[in-house]
């Protein structure tokens, strides 16, 4: 196929999935209805911490339409929701890991926890009956504040644990004396206390689960809004319900965004699966947005002190952080890995700081569980590092960009003091590109124009690096992961030459249905319309670990390449047989097999037909058929990196911040579909700007979520953001995967919050305000208070 802008690697064909989404023909989980289904309404706790003395369901059970009512007692014999990562603390002890019940087991530990579940013929009946359930509770003090939770006299969230501390972890240089010595000998130390605000992921599609049970075959089907149906099947079968995996099919059809929040195995999924058998009917649950706020895992919520030591020449000499990270009331699937290995390993950033020490205490509180949200640990690392560098530059009176450039890692591979080996990168190049894209040179004039209309204007920059393509299974296994993090793909070539690729990655906005076929079609030299991917169904896809951590193309895409290579190798053998030549002499180009140095050729379709109609076929050497599977376990993480710049205007009368310009220069290595990559960056920027300026999942001291709907949780809207300038022309291909790709899904969310805050601080200081830091979100109220504090 000739290279054009419509096909192949590096092209931007229009997304094929768009047609169904644009015409209302998508198939989201809530669009699915099963014959005879019943509906569940979950009665959720409206207090944060209480002992359940009794639950009287007798009146509710007599209400019209009620099929069955479940309480914690009905799940006493069922396992709890597992945590997928066991972190070992600084003393060599395992994390404290409480039981995480499907339905509260005598104690309520957060607002939104399921206390009882009513299954009824209609959802109205289920809701009506739930109101007739009588709860007898004894309230307990709510543990909300992390510092308070760690105090010796604090109420415990889990009575059976020794304290509210999940683990106390140290990473990097664990020699406190040596680290302190590095600070003692520093010419300058910059210290910053900051909060990484708690967020709610808020994919626009709320979660849905439909459980079905087929008595005749003893088989279950769960339709669910998941980023990784195989992971859900594994966790639910092996740890919660004790079901044989081969009797359970998990389907995640069109999924309306995830951003991490649909990775985790949730109680509602296990409930609907279990209840389908117990009720003898399919059971459906559709979350409302209000429910989502108190039942979807939240993200971030770190409180950090970071210290940066510099020598007299402004070289970074040491970095030390102390973080408290909120786990909420229970450990969600990836929760404990986020503030530890997904955060601590990134604390070197793009810089050659020789000494790095990361200290993290994770804390149980009476709040919704906290887990991965777009970026997961890496935004928290980037934010604190890039904020403290900016503060240091201001204290030292040096240019923030120059200070960064001076300390950049420039030689690769580079082993950081926090356990990673960056295989490749060029931070100078991305910063050069950023300065151009952001038009740094024109800033002074733009600032003057803003000041002329009474606004303060600020410029903020930051770098980021992330570890993506999670992950080498042996390494993460040593670090406590309880799963392998490879992925898998099966390439099934049909007799007529069309191809179905069954991939373990799930597409819920990322455009895999378009980009993955670009790769396979280019490798074989056939039209992309001949290739489809199949995803999101454990009944069709052999296996896969799913989509998160910007891993889909880097890990699953690599598996797809490997499987396609196997297909090509076998097809070449068939072609060699047909042309009576040696395998080694066969070349494949533009869908034609040729014998090198001759004019003999056979077409792709002739070979695939021969594979399935093996009349003239080397049956003694080759099996018929053309289908291959590959599992791919990456040798290393991938390291996307870049530099971002934000320009803001601040209204000094009200404190309102507006984003005037935002520029991003990213190095994602090789790129399959630039249009889709740009879109991923845009989306990440929207979420990062949202975190920086708008979003805040705030609890009061009683453990009530104050921002529990869109009336109080400020989502970024179209008029909160500008057109972005994004550039990914700096490309240092990944050295260890076949496509040279790094992943792009999280970069925008990781790289943008510090740029925004740095810009606001710059604006305020330009107006003569002695403001060195404001905690996110930089709402008008907070900015005004800081200016007038």
């Amino acid at each position, binding site marked *: 196929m000739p290279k054009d802008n419509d096909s192949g690697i590096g092209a931007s064909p229009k997304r094929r999935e768009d047609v169904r989404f644009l015409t*209302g023909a998508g198939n989201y989980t809530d669009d699915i209805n099963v014959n005879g289904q019943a509906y569940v309404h979950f009665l959720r706790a409206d207090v944060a911490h209480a002992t359940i003395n009794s639950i009287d369901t007798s009146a509710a059970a007599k209400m019209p339409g009620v099929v069955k009512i479940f309480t914690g007692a009905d799940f006493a014999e069922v396992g709890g929701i597992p945590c997928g990562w066991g972190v070992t603390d600084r003393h060599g002890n395992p994390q404290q890991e409480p039981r995480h019940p499907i339905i509260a087991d005598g104690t309520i530990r957060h607002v939104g926890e399921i206390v009882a579940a009513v299954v009824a013929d209609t959802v109205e009946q289920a809701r009506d009956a739930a109101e007739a359930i009588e709860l007898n509770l004894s309230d307990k003090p709510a543990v909300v504040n992390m510092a308070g939770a760690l105090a010796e006299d604090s109420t415990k969230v889990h009575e059976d644990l020794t304290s509210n501390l999940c683990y106390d972890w140290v990473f990097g240089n664990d020699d406190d004396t040596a680290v302190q010595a590095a600070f003692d000998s520093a010419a300058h130390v910059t210290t910053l206390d900051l909060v990484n605000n708690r967020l709610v992921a808020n994919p626009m599609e709320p979660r849905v689960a439909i459980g079905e049970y087929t008595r005749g075959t003893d088989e279950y089907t769960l339709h669910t809004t998941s980023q990784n149906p195989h992971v859900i099947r594994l966790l639910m079968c092996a740890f919660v319900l004790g079901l044989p995996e081969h009797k359970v099919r998990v389907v995640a059809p069109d999924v309306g965004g995830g951003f991490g929040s649909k990775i985790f195995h949730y109680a509602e999924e296990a409930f609907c699966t279990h209840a389908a058998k117990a009720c003898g009917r399919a059971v459906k649950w559709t979350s409302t947005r209000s429910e989502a706020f108190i039942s979807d895992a939240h993200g971030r919520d770190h409180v950090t002190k970071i210290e940066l030591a510099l020598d007299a020449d402004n070289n970074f000499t040491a970095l030390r952080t102390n973080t408290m990270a909120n786990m909420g009331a229970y450990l969600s699937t990836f929760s404990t890995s986020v503030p530890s290995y997904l955060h601590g390993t990134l604390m070197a950033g793009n810089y050659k700081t020789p000494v790095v020490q990361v200290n993290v205490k994770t804390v149980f509180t009476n709040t919704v569980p906290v887990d991965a949200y777009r970026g997961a640990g890496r935004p928290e690392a980037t934010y604190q590092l890039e904020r403290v560098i900016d503060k240091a530059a201001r204290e030292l009176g040096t240019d923030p960009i120059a200070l960064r450039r001076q300390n950049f890692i420039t030689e690769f591979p580079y082993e950081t003091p926090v356990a990673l080996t960056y295989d490749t990168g060029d931070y100078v190049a991305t910063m050069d590109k950023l300065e151009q894209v952001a038009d740094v040179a024109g800033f002074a004039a733009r600032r003057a124009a803003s000041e002329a209309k009474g606004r303060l204007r600020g410029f903020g920059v930051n770098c980021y690096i992330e570890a993506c393509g999670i992950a080498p299974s042996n390494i993460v296994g040593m670090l406590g992961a309880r799963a392998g993090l490879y992925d898998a793909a099966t390439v099934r070539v049909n007799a007529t030459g069309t191809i179905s690729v069954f991939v373990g990655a799930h597409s819920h906005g990322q455009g895999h249905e378009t980009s993955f076929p670009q790769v396979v079609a280019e490798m074989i030299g056939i039209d992309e319309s001949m290739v489809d991917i199949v995803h999101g169904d454990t009944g069709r896809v052999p296996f896969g670990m799913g989509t998160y951590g910007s891993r889909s193309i880097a890990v699953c895409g690599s598996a797809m390449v490997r499987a396609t290579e196997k297909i090509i190798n076998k097809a070449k053998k068939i072609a060699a047989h047909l042309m009576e030549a040696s395998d080694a002499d066969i070349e494949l180009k533009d869908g034609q097999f040729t014998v090198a140095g001759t004019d003999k050729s056979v077409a792709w379709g002739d070979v695939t037909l021969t594979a399935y109609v093996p009349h003239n076929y080397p049956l003694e050497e080759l099996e018929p058929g053309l289908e291959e599977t590959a599992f791919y376990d990456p040798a290393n993480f991938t390291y996307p990196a870049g530099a971002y710049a934000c320009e803001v205007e601040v209204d000094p009368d009200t404190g309102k911040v507006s984003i005037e310009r935002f520029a991003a220069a990213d190095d994602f290595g090789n790129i399959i579909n630039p249009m889709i990559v740009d879109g991923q960056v845009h989306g990440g920027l929207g*979420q990062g700007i949202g975190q920086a300026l708008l979003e805040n999942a705030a609890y009061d001291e009683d453990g009530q979520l104050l921002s529990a709907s869109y009336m109080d949780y400020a989502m970024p809207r179209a*008029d909160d953001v500008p057109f972005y*300038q*994004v550039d990914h022309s700096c490309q240092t291909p990944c050295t260890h995967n076949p496509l040279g790709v790094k992943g792009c899904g999280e970069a925008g969310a990781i790289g943008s919050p510090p740029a925004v805050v740095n810009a606001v601080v710059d604006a305020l200081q330009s107006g003569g305000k002695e403001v060195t830091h404001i905690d996110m979100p930089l709402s008008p109220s907070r900015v005004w208070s800081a200016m007038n504090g």
Partner: protein
Amino acid sequence: MAKVSMTVNGKAASGDVEGRTLLSAFLREELGLTGTHVGCDTSQCGACVVHVDGQAVKACTMLALEAEGSEVATIEGQANADGSLNTIQQAFQDHHGLQCGFCTPGMVMSAAALLKDNPKPSEGEIRDYLEGNLCRCTGYHNIVKAIMAASGQDVSSIAAE
């Protein structure tokens, strides 16, 4: 239960509903028009936007019985007669104005309402008009760009294709 009748995408539609039945539920469950999505319960996300008698409304904040006798248009009725994407839909595809697709029906219906009243909206007017349509995937960049393109404006100078 009461009977409700309306015209949906040019066809007569009726059904028995309760007083509390929302227009969104009637469309999705009674008529099987599941392209109208429900993303919140406070009338803010706009995934459910449809047109009632030519005006954009949130179908999750209107009772089915309030639409009695009305002309209702949903995303399912937006494509051209031959099934091809209409100008707005095509611009969304051309400019990558959607990712997960969940907010998309509401975005397209809002964009159609905007362009009916304001055939060449500025960037600012588009962003302002989309106040009631949340998208979590795109950062809005390509949605705004797509609507500008759908209105016949040259978007080639807008960063990033």
